[in-house]
């Protein structure tokens, strides 16, 4: 067996589950969660919102991107208990009354995905980017979307889709 090089650690009693209140896609949710539950796991495993994807689980791929109080973050490096009281928007919450969000329509119009695994994170990230208002040029969009990896390589079409949606916002 491989030796692991970490210092010995104390035994810690398992903590009580902690009440967490989240408004997710406009609906108030009451949860009881262990403190180590990430926001991503809370959304996927406790609220059945599987739009946010667990890609790398280390904040490197952006597939888990959601909006918390209107700002894009990676939900895999966020503890749900720390966001008690927050408003969370996932890809499932972007359409209104059955009409696609302009970014969702733009991703379809521009063929901005192939396998689709990164797409919920790409679209949530793009929604955050448009709200931030810092990107105008293609270069600026590329730079400020660099936290979202697309291994199918749909990047040029993603930039075009964001430009289209930005023009409509």
């Amino acid at each position, binding site marked *: 067996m*491989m030796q*692991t090089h970490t210092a010995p650690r104390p035994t810690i009693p398992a903590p009580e589950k902690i009440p967490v209140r989240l408004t997710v896609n406009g609906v108030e949710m009451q949860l009881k969660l262990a403190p180590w539950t990430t926001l991503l796991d809370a959304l996927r495993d406790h609220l059945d919102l599987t739009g946010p994807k667990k890609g790398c689980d280390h*904040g490197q791929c952006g597939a888990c*991107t959601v909006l918390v109080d209107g700002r*894009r973050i990676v939900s895999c490096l966020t503890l749900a208990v720390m966001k008690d009281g927050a408003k969370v928007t996932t890809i499932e919450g972007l359409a209104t009354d059955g009409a696609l969000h302009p970014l969702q329509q733009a991703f379809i119009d521009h063929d901005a995905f192939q396998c689709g695994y990164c797409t919920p994170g790409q679209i949530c*990230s793009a929604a955050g980017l448009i709200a931030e208002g810092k990107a105008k040029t293609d270069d600026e969009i590329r730079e400020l979307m660099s936290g979202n990896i697309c291994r199918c390589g749909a990047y040029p079409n993603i930039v075009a889709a964001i430009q289209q949606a930005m023009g409509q916002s």
Partner: protein
Amino acid sequence: MINFQYSRATDVADAVRQMAAHPSAKFIAGGTNLIDLMKEDVEHPSRLIDIARLPLNSVEGTADGGVQIGALVLNSDLAYHPLIAQRYPMLASAILAGASAQLRNMASTGGNLLQRTRCCYFYDTATPCNKREPGSGCSAIVGLSRMHAILGTSEACIATHPSDMCVALAALDAKVHAVGPAGARAIAFADFHRLPGDTPQRDTNLEPNEIVTAVDLPARGFAANYTYLKIRDRLSYAFALVSVAAALELEGDTIKEARLALGGVAHKPWRDPVAETALRGQAASQATFGRAADLVLGDAKGFEHNAFKIDLARRAIIRALTQAAAGTPQSQSNKKVC
């Protein structure tokens, strides 16, 4: 993830009290580095003390013409804050050169200072690492060393400090405010991070029971002649191979004041006062910049995969000083280096 207790601090004094009562706890704010390290089993605090809601999130002008940055100001809020964007654009540029938009929306100012190295052996609990387990040895010295240090290394550790923001803070002569059981103190930025020596497990001179509350910037912002030039293996969202924060005050062609700090090359943001002194009073020329680069890199030592960094750093220093002197700072969106 590992088992841990969770509590929220109600104010700074409560945070300090909680830490004193639970010495194996850690403070958590943005969590972008700490949660990752906990998932990797590198960090295993018995308790997380949540400080994210403490009122340390303002950026305000100070009486001496500088700016005080609360420890919980988010990296993105800091980069885009009007006071920073206009008066300290080198700091704004350095922040925007680091991480991704999502991570900058999460990461705090204090957390950026306290983030740990991204040395792959520090993260890999199957390998020896003196920083993770003192006395176990350094895997990087004889291993993959492309991302490692060329300045200020020791037999025990050749890891680099990963921050971009801190390179600009070093060049700007920032000051760190901290509070612990013994009260409040201020730490000069040059004294905040440490070289590895034979205690690489200690990244900074902050005591484990202290909390960072603010970072001060003095009045001098170098808004006219500055750059933050970051060279990396891909154009965005990668740690620096070499980065340079360069800032000048010019009178005609003559350098009146100079600041020069490097990232990606040492265990701490590497500011070189000797090179800065050599720049002062000289003509802003390629020859002057080359001499400064030679001074910075005189004691540089390369390892198997990173010796190229010595030449890369020399060129990056000259290029950065050229950009600063010309008043043409490196764009962080158009990555062409001019």
